[in-house]
């Protein structure tokens, strides 16, 4: 059984947020939802400032607090290590969201189809769209995955449930890499099977010093960071993403 993990090379990451974009496109996540987020951080006082970047997918924790607290078992850990949400079972209590120390969970506050970035009712785009609002769902993301055959891929399935990064389960099961990994122009993200000594992630991590985020909370994350360090306590985010969902 594979043991999936990700390595993030902080020395390579240049903060371009291409991975953030790729994730949104691949997984159809709606407005304000960032399964992958790249912090652009600043530390110290001008002129002694230091800039750093920190990509933050779901950490797919081995000892995942989100899995532990879910009252209905919708959030679960697969034997290959992926932490997934069963969209058909989640009741939207958001307990996983408050339990996760990394802030990677997103709730569908409104109907996903009403939460496009594009305002499809805008008269200017009517000539091009012909008045059609494209369907939010797509067959690939609606499929069932894993031995459990649960509906776990993609985002924005229903209003009122929680979603988060899946390591692109729909791609992994086809032997592809997660979208963020594929798109990164400087290969700061490396994905693979830790059991397999020759997998990209195993070779990349070998002999390098790595750390994991917030290890002190006992979550045992599957995302290993190389170079850089855990962000200090006086860092500021210089460019927070536009996140609020409006009513």
């Amino acid at each position, binding site marked *: 059984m594979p043991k999936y993990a990700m390595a993030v090379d902080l020395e390579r990451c240049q903060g371009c947020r291409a991975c953030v974009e790729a994730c949104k496109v691949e997984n159809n996540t709606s407005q304000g939802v960032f399964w992958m987020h790249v912090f652009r951080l600043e530390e110290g006082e001008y002129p002694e400032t230091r800039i750093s970047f920190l990509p933050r997918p779901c950490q797919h924790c081995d000892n995942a607090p989100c899995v532990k607290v879910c009252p209905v078992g919708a959030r679960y850990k697969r034997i290959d290590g992926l932490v997934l949400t069963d969209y058909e079972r989640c009741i*939207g209590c958001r307990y996983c969201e408050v339990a996760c120390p990394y*802030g990677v969970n997103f709730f569908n*506050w409104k109907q996903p189809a009403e939460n496009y970035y594009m305002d499809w009712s805008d008269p200017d785009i009517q000539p091009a769209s012909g008045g059609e609002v494209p369907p939010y769902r797509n067959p690939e993301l609606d499929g069932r995955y894993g031995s459990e055959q649960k509906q776990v891929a993609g985002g924005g399935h229903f209003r009122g449930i929680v979603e988060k990064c899946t390591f692109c389960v729909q791609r992994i099961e086809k032997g592809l890499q997660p979208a963020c990994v594929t798109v990164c122009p400087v290969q700061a993200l490396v994905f693979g099977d830790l059991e397999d000594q020759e997998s990209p992630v195993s070779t990349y991590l070998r002999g390098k010093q790595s750390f994991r985020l917030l290890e002190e909370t006992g979550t045992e994350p599957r995302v290993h960071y190389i170079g850089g360090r855990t962000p200090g306590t006086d860092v500021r*985010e210089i460019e*927070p993403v536009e996140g609020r*969902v409006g009513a």
Partner: protein
Amino acid sequence: MSANAPGTPLPQGIGRITPGWLTIVGLAAVAVALGIYAYSLEASEGLVATGLRDLGTMGGATWGLYVTFVVYFGGVAFGGVTLAALIRLLRLDELRPIGRLGQLLTVVALLLAAIAILVDLGQPLRGLVNLFLYARPQSPFFGTFTIVLSGYLFASLVYLYLDGRRDAAICARTPSRLRWLYRLWAAGYGDSPGERARHRRASFWLAVAIVPLLVVATSTLGFVFGLQAGRPGWYSAVQAPAFVTLAGVSGVGLLIVLAAVVRRVAGSEDRLGLNVFRRLGGLLLGLVLVYLFLLATELFTATYTGEVVERRLTEALLWGEFAGIFWAALAFFLLSLALLLWQALTRRWSIPLLVVAGLLVNLAAIGKRYLIVVPSQTHGQLLPYPEGSYTPALGEFAVIAGLFGLGVLLIALFMKVFPIVELPEEEVPAGA
């Protein structure tokens, strides 16, 4: 068994509709209607209609007013039924007249807590099914849903039922439209000395069984927060004891208020005498003292040794965004403490002052529950997300108002069908 002479009214104004009662019920009904309207908007638009948002990049709180009141109502429920059980257990006969009020308060508060959970869920209908179908004991929520809701509810309903049998038997002697109900409730109970003794034994052992259960159950409510290592401000060992104590504080405080109201409207001045209130006041005083001690311990640890995030959180509480609520809650606690202490020391108890104290501790308890739920989400992020904020939407307030309205409505209805204060022993002809 001799039936009362026809024309004798049922005790405590049962079955008699007065203008005052109608006014209260009318106001409560308006609040309920408002709540339902607000929730219907929420149900059609989604929870986007609330002030809640995601943690992290969205900079919000995902649990807010609703969860605050789930915890608050859960606490009140605990206070009510525990007191009722303790009255049996410790044979606090003086307090017996408020036993039923305690049981009723518990049943009502639980119902309100359950509704508050449902309105907070993104998928309430699924919740109703899945919470039972796929219940996972490993989730601290399991404690809340099963032990707290069903355990309390079961214990307090059984209690309400058993304790009410004698009064039902008494009421059944008077011909009335509700006689069938009293007969059903009394279920053959005739209030002979033998039956009375058996009845007493049963409720004593029931109390022995439920008090520990209740403490455990309320602690699990504390664990919902206390076990979260990744959320500064929540991860704490005092969380569970503090939850239980504050639950007692709010429960007893609300009971004082309700008892004062019942005393007036049900004409039970003699049954609910000053001695009852004095006892409750003393109890409340003790609980407030213990709670303030726990609060001080918690704050001291947080400010003295706390890590950076923990300290930032404390700063937001003491001087920042939440300072208003924090200091108001503390002032209310201290004010009620002063009121209670003064009465205890001078031994001059006054019902109006006790009611004020009861209201104050409840407002303070709500504030404190809010401060447990919200700041750890908006200001307790361990990764460098910007600070978040949460302002409840009007609709959320309306739903909460509706819940209170429903509570008032239920209690007011109960008062018109059944004696809310246990009938005195003397009304039973000896050896009947």
